[in-house]
């Protein structure tokens, strides 16, 4: 199912205009005709945010946020802790209504996307159920609200094997390390075959070595699939290593102070962090973050 899309977005395709765009896996220039269009809408997700605002009582959490997230791109939102990034994710995932403004996920409301299981979440804590085995945990999202299971849903076993958990299908969560637990959480989200993956600092609780391992696993997983990823983090290097685009948010209320394209080649090399361009981009993001912190 991926084959025609991958072909359409190969860097040597004529419709790609700039070398920068060419490095994107999927961009806004996808040919919008024929079977590819339907594949596109079935598999990827374009998110539009217009003047989005969210407040709890008098406390403004998100303010006047507008952006477009193109289908199949990996977009990180980076900002100081407590700036409302998680709230933004929850609004986009349809778990929290917006106070004002408009959001569409593939033209639908987030609420509708959620009820059709088109948004897959990876929370900060893995949230594995201790009484379920690795395999059973991986298929938890398929076991509830079954009527909404999309035809794109995937069997967990091959995915678990892909992330190196093939020998742990019948293990219980307490037998796994933190990194392994988070890999199960990742697989659990991917089983839905959902076009949108939202991840809320999923690697924040892991040690540095495990984090970098998780980065390459995540890169590998999403590079082989057509999925739009919205990734919230407060780690500069994580944002740059994973993303096609980094949105730098201000302290609360969240708004976007910088929108930085990450033109590192895909597929990302495991040693991408040694790339001089990586270091440059980190500096750019760091600079934008500092600018955003100024009153």
């Amino acid at each position, binding site marked *: 199912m991926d084959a025609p899309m991958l072909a359409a977005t190969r860097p040597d395709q004529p419709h790609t205009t700039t070398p920068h765009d060419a490095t994107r896996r999927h961009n806004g220039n996808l040919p919008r005709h024929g079977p590819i269009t339907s594949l596109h809408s079935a598999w990827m997700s374009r998110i539009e945010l217009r003047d989005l605002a969210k407040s709890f009582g008098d406390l403004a959490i998100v303010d006047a946020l507008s952006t477009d997230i193109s289908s199949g791109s990996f977009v990180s939102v980076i900002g100081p802790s407590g700036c409302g990034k998680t709230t933004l994710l929850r609004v986009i*995932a*349809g*778990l929290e209504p917006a106070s004002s403004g408009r959001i569409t996920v593939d033209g639908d409301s987030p609420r509708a996307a*959620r*009820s059709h*299981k088109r*948004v*897959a*979440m990876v*929370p*900060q*804590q*893995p*949230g*594995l*159920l*201790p*009484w*379920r085995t690795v395999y059973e945990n991986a298929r*938890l*999202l398929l*076991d*509830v*609200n079954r009527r*909404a299971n999309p035809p794109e849903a995937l069997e967990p076993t091959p995915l678990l094997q892909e992330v190196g958990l093939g020998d742990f299908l019948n293990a*219980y*969560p*307490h037998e796994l390390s933190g990194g392994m637990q988070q890999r199960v959480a990742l697989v*659990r989200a991917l089983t*839905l075959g959902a076009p949108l993956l939202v991840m809320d600092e999923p690697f924040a609780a892991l040690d540095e070595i495990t984090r970098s391992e998780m980065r390459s696993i995540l890169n590998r997983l999403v590079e082989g699939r057509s999925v739009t990823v919205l990734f919230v983090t407060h780690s500069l290097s994580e944002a740059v290593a994973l993303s096609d685009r980094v949105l730098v948010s201000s302290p609360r209320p969240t708004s976007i102070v910088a929108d930085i394209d990450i033109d590192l080649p895909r597929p990302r090399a495991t040693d991408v962090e040694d790339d001089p361009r990586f270091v440059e981009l980190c500096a750019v993001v760091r600079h934008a973050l500092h600018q955003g912190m100024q009153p």
Partner: protein
Amino acid sequence: MSKRLLAPFVGIVGFLALWEALVRVGDVRPFVLRAPSRIVAYLADHFGDYAGAAWVTAHHALIGSLIGLLVAVIIGSAMAASRFAEQAAQPVLTLLQVTPFVAYIASVVLWLGSGTRPAVFIVALVSMPAFAFAAADGMRGADPAARELLASVDASRREVLWRLRLPSAIPSLFTTARYNVGLALIASYLVEGGNFANEGLGAIGKRAAALNEGDALWGAIFSMAILGTIALLMLSLLQRLVMGWHPSQRTRAS
């Protein structure tokens, strides 16, 4: 015998030996305190009577506890789901817990008739509040990340209850069950002493107390202790079976 069974055995035998020694060395008169050896001998002589009575008491305690648990899970789910339900239920449950149920056994017997029904009813009634608090606490303590996750795919309330909240309550329900074993057995015993059925350890105990038959009374007390021990043992086995995933059930490396 494995180490896990040996330790409690040593504890009980040690306790009984100390008791025996106290009675013999201190020359305690039998109507004050009997020696365990004498009670055990009496029990052995009347094994059939006591086994039959213990079976009746166990039956009352088990059926009553199961009904209490079932009602408690329903009430506990409502408490976990709604603050209002919780605040409404809390004083009633506390009231049930603090009322000396011995005082209203006679009324319940008058209402439900003699025999099994009042025994099962009282056991269910007294074991329910602790189970309800445990169920509500366990369900409310369900992993927030897992709750968020189930919400993200629009899982129904029933699915959240069944897949997340109920299993989350299992550990606290087992803890409460350990405490409720004693309560249920004592409730059965006391009702059997007043339900005119002349069945169960409570009936033997009541009659023995009335007729000043110390051996028979102590036989009933010992039988209750044995029953409680067996119940706790079975509860542990069940817990091991149901909660193999739980940290408390992990075997320590030896």
